[in-house]
């Protein structure tokens, strides 16, 4: 299967990308709407993503709307807030059973597209806005979810590190939203924001599966004709390639395990020439089960169960995470730096290069089996204007890399933040203490 999408312009700054495949028993349709990331836009989009499933003009309650989707063979249609670099927005993702599996012979996808577009373009409205009573319920749900961030300690630690590292950058905005902004907005204001958002947002739509493509195109053109498009140009993401000093922050929480998260500036973004070599650098360092960090921190030193590194090409940073015992934190930090230094010094075996390349290529090629993941793979490339790269072409570039390309990447990595969320078995309570230490590492 060729996964390269056929790209169709629907209207100003709105594109439909079609990946035709009969390999799956399902059809996927995903809408991405994107705008600049601010505390306000993140809070609003989060609320809107929760309001859309609460009803449409035709099915005014969540109960009726979910029954309509249920009749359509349990088609799932989820709306959620997304973040990419310093842009954010709403994703609506529809998944339906392919028509040929219909038990009564009636088509499924065409009806499901109607329901999904109704959910996006004709949400239930009362007195010219979202129903305030329904909105109040969702405000509570969102605020609860914000306070429930501490439930997943590892994830919480990773987010805290970003907040500390990118303190004065839009990137640190929490897409879960902000209680004070959420409290202030009413149904009418939020609905007006949403109409403006729909008209201005950069919009990319992905379809993967089998359907009448002309019908899909015409259905989408019709719904977009109800929106007066006034595209707003996004500001783009600020990339910082250097770290002036290393921030060391330790916070405490009542829990058993401690979480070490280290943040690095790389300046390597998806459209930079170092992007492909850096994928390999990351894989050698901590991107796989044969990486230096895994083999040493876990297998040799028994310091952790989970350890790994992950780059974010939307912002030009890299993160290293390890779940450890707090008494081992210095050991883990030192060993991490030691492994990074080894790469810089060229201490990389041919096997390490070969294994890391294979791991990347395997996961790239395998994307073709996951239509949902494919949409997520193509979106950021479309956003930076690259419509030619496919997982296969990228895999070919990885294959051609050499050891020297990995070594060259080492100089790009600048330590920015070392964050430890420290478990404390003796004390009770989640009292969070902050101690800043400006020592250069």
């Amino acid at each position, binding site marked *: 299967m060729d996964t390269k999408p056929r790209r169709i312009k629907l209207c100003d700054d709105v594109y439909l990308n079609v990946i035709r495949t009969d*390999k799956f*028993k399902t059809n996927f349709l995903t809408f991405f709407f994107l705008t600049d990331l601010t505390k306000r836009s993140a809070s609003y989009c989060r609320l809107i993503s929760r309001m859309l499933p609460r009803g449409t003009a035709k099915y005014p*309650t*969540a*109960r009726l709307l*979910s*029954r309509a989707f*249920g*009749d359509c*063979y*349990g088609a799932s249609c989820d709306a959620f807030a997304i973040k990419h670099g310093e842009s954010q927005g709403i994703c609506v993702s529809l*998944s*339906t*059973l392919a028509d040929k*599996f219909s*038990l009564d012979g009636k088509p499924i996808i065409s009806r499901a597209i109607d329901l999904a577009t109704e959910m996006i373009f004709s949400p239930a409205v009362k007195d010219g806005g979202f129903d305030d009573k329904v909105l109040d*319920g969702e405000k509570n749900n969102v605020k*609860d*979810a914000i*306070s*429930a961030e*501490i*439930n997943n300690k590892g994830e919480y630690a990773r987010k805290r590190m970003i907040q500390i590292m990118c303190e004065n950058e839009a990137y640190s905005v929490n897409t879960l939203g902000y209680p004070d902004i959420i409290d202030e907005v009413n149904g009418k204001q939020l609905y007006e924001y949403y109409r403006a958002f729909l008209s201005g947002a950069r919009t990319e739509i992905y379809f993967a599966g089998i359907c009448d493509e002309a019908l899909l195109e015409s259905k989408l053109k019709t719904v977009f004709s109800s929106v007066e498009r006034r595209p707003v140009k996004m500001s783009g993401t600020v990339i910082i390639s250097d770290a002036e000093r290393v921030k060391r922050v330790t916070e405490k929480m*009542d*829990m*058993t*395990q401690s979480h070490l998260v280290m943040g690095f500036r790389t300046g390597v973004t998806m459209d930079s020439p170092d992007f492909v070599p850096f994928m390999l650098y990351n894989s050698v360092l901590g991107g*796989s*089960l*044969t990486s230096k960090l*895994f*083999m040493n921190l*876990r*297998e040799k030193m*028994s*310091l*952790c*169960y*989970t350890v790994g590194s992950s780059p974010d090409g939307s912002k030009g940073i890299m993160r290293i995470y390890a*779940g450890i*015992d707090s008494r081992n934190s210095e050991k883990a930090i030192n060993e991490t730096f030691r492994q990074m230094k080894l790469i810089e010094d060229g201490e990389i075996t041919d*096997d390490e290069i*070969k*294994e*890391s390349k*294979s*791991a990347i*290529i*395997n996961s790239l*090629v*395998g*994307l*073709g*089996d996951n239509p949902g993941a494919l949409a997520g793979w193509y979106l950021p490339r479309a956003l930076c204007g690259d419509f030619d790269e496919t997982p296969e072409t990228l895999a070919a570039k990885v294959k051609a890399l050499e050891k020297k390309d990995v070594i060259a990447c080492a100089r790009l990595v600048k330590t920015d933040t070392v964050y430890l969320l420290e*478990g404390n078995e003796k004390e*009770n*309570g*989640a*009292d*969070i203490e902050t101690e800043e230490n400006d020592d250069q590492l």
Partner: protein
Amino acid sequence: MISFKEFKNERLGEKCLYGVHSSGLEVFLVPKDHKKSYAIFGTRYGAMHRTFKTDSDPDFVTVPDGIAHFLEHKLFENEDGSDTFSLYAQHGANANAFTSNELTAYLFSATGDYYENLEILLKFVTSPYFTKETVDKEMGIIGQELRMYLDNPYRRLYKNLLDALYVNNHAKIDVGGTEESIAKITPEILYRCYGTFYNLHNMTLCLCGSFDPEKVSDVMDKTLKPSEPINITHKFPEEPDRVNKSVVTEKFNIALPMFYLGIKDTPFSDFTDPKAILKKICAHDVLLEILFGRSSDFYNDLYESGMINDKFSSGYIYGKNFSFVYFAAETREPEKVAAMIREEIEKAKSGKYGEVINEAFERSRRTVYADCVQEWNSTSDIADNILDLRFIGADVMGMADAAAELTVSDVLERLRESYDLSLSALSIIVPDECAESEK
């Protein structure tokens, strides 16, 4: 050598090959034109197999809790010092393993070098190598894994639920064991467990993707030594017809209270008809969808009133030796919501919902049917499901048919037989006070 038999499913447009290798190992192979091929090699051995013997053992042995999982970790180490993950990585495979209550499984996915990777899988799982040094080293890694779970509220809820539901059933044994129990593990006990459960007659290999049956057979000829037929006897304690505790409440560093409500159901160990197993699973799923799914009045009434959020879920969890229905929610009023779930079940059982069930049946059946068909999208889902169902005595090929053919009376029968509220227990965790006052 294997001679494969072919089984087809018209509705799905899929086929499955089945055969038993001369070594004693059975193989399922589903051909699929996907990029990723996937293999899973499982043994009928999990955390609940605590006391056992083979016909050649004079006595039963009782082993430390968590040993099945520990053994899973240790098999990745080889006598020549090579690391299994590195061997796989040479051929681009992504490998992993897991242990549950009733099974241990080793798996890989790869976009090429299928037979090299299959050989690695079969070789390392059939070549145990344990020494005191390597066993001791693993304590640190697994210790961290267990600590990670201790901080996970969902895991704690689940553990407490099993402990409340079951008086004796070994399903309540934690898969990882504890730091104290794994400290008792020695190479000798590991070899005894290995010798018992990693006999090829006790194992199943499931493959899905671009595997060629003949080449698979060749790899097996080359790597597998025949196992003697084995008969393993387990000592499972008698489980009384009551729950251990009706409520367990624990404090935890979380934001909102959460609960799991469970209702004990009978296990599949007595089932002889594979179709009856599938029918039971589908009937549970459809019934729960009707009464508690996203389209149900129950869910929508409570959601609208703010008592529950979209984390609410329900489902049927099953193994060969245990099974139960669960409900999960995040709510400020756990006892009240749990009571409302029980009330809803009582109402349905008393026949008050005849209309509701008739109205929602077709929609819910379609939803469950679509889920069963969608499972055939991914090579890993396909092979995992074959293994899971094989170990309880059922055949995944019939799952979508079972859902499509389900009737209202099947659902009503399930409601009558499996929802005995005297067998229900509640596991709650509440925010600990210090965490609360912090906000």
